[in-house]
């Protein structure tokens, strides 16, 4: 089985994000980058599925600047087999929009012909949650978004590193996190599956694997070579800081709290 996993280089969610004074974008100087956490979950799932169905291959694809090779390398250090970087130099408001990314990925997938594509459900920079769905439609494939599992992340199944997605008879069976509960879908392969937080806990790269990853190949492609026009369908015109909340008031005890909720906030 061939599994393709997309990985996006994003600002570290632990960094302090500030808007630029000219409101064109956020301040990126001094902000660390890392792989989108949802994508790491996708990589972990791919590795578990691969190891349960050898011989298989896990290919990591990233669309972005040369720096995104770092995130591909991290996924290779987790255990993935090889990488593809679709190099695109636009940054800030000129970054790829999800639609352009989906169309680039479509071309890569048409070349690579994977059986399964795993992606994060959203990237924690633009928080769009659309790329996987766009890609599925462009490919004419089935999709299962927000993949999860019924067992918790502290369950025996998770400790045994069992995959949450079941591959059987040319289909993927997927539990999805939807409003009001969990839904089970069966999707014919090849398919797009986007992953949610409860699918697994991604592994850390071991030192020997980090060394090995240095020798794994990363191919480079470009939008031009793939024949994709990267003009954005959604453009960011400006960004601003969210409205601040005037919080911070403390109350000494429960009685005061209840009294304030009743007379000041009038919510009880």
């Amino acid at each position: 089985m061939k599994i393709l996993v997309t990985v996006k280089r994003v600002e570290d969610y632990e960094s302090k994000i500030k808007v630029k004074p000219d409101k064109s974008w956020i301040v990126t100087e001094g902000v660390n980058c890392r792989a989108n956490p949802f994508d790491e979950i996708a990589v972990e799932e791919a590795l578990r599925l691969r190891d349960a169905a050898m011989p298989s291959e896990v290919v990591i694809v990233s669309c972005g600047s040369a720096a995104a090779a770092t995130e591909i390398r991290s996924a290779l250090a987790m255990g993935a087999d090889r990488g593809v970087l679709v190099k695109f130099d636009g940054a800030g408001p000129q970054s790829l929009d999800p639609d352009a990314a989906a169309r680039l990925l479509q071309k890569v997938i048409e070349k690579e012909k994977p059986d399964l594509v795993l992606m994060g459900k959203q990237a924690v920079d633009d928080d769009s949650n659309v790329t996987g769905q766009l890609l599925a439609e462009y490919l004419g494939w089935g999709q299962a978004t927000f993949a999860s599992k019924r067992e918790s992340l502290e369950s025996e199944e998770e400790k045994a590193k069992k995959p949450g997605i079941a591959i059987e008879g040319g289909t993927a069976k997927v539990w999805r996190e939807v409003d009001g509960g969990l839904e089970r879908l069966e999707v014919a392969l090849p398919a797009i599956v986007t992953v949610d937080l409860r699918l697994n806990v991604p592994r850390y790269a071991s030192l020997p694997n980090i060394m090995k990853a240095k020798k794994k190949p990363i191919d480079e492609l470009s939008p031009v070579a793939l024949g994709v026009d990267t003009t954005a369908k959604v453009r960011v015109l400006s960004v601003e800081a969210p409205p601040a909340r005037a919080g911070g008031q403390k109350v000494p005890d429960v009685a005061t709290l209840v009294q304030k909720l009743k007379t000041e906030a009038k919510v009880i």
Partner: protein
Amino acid sequence: MANSILLIAEAHEGKLKKATLSALAAAREIAVRTSGNVVGLIAGHGIDGAAKELAAHGVRVLAADSAAFAHVLAETYGQLAAEAAKKTEATYVVAAATSIGKDVMPRVAARLGAGVASDVIGLSGEGATVHFRRAMWAGNAIATVEVTTPVKCVTVRATEFAAASAATGGSVEAFSFTPSAAKTKFVEFVPVKSARPELTEARAVVSGGRGTKGDFTLIEQLADELGAAVGASRAVVDAGWQPNDLQVGQTGKVVAPQLYIAIGISGAIQHLAGMKGSKTIVAINKDADAPIFQVADYGLVADLFKVVPELIAEIHKAKV
């Protein structure tokens, strides 16, 4: 009908989802600014009641009532909505950013060659030029975006648009469309059963975090005392203490109730992204430096196991 704003409505157990009425409010605003008309699309099996409910809001409703749409599959719903958009010459396609809206809308957009602005929290721009405001980086920045394609797809965050009111002039007509066979099959749905109000629609929400150590008895008692919904932080849900569906935050549910009580929750930015819009925020945490206190209108530094029982008793007294 030229220049329509196609609203993808959602029915749940035969009834119109409240989030759809928030999406309708956004659709109406776009219609007024672009001199368009809102057309509703509702699909499912046995959706008569929901279709009428939507029509009672002054909307011309296309109802695709068929066994083929009994379960929402992004593939078939995407085809249907794209077809309806073409038939009605839609310039905008709008839906609520529910799990269904998020799943389906990008497929509609791809079929229409449209850009999609997701989880929109407000409209901006001038007159017929509609721009969209949406949160990025876990709500650390609010972007104004432009969709540059002739047809524009939008999912809206329901908590940011007051539900549209009833209006006259609506109608229901059958819309028949047979989608090509899906590569996806519905297997089963395991609902989270709860007698409490729905998290995203509740007037009050009581959320518990890791500080509860997994015991939600007090959280639930307080919620019931207030008629509130129960929410949770990611830590609680990851541990399997509470269902996924209760996660509040950047990647879970976004809520904006009149009253949000965070108990034993530290207040990570990803959690704040899902509740910062609440009218009144109360935080109970034993760590005086917990970031949750920075957004709380009323903070109580205390051990939750000691003060929540007192709080339940006091609120009970305050009510009688």
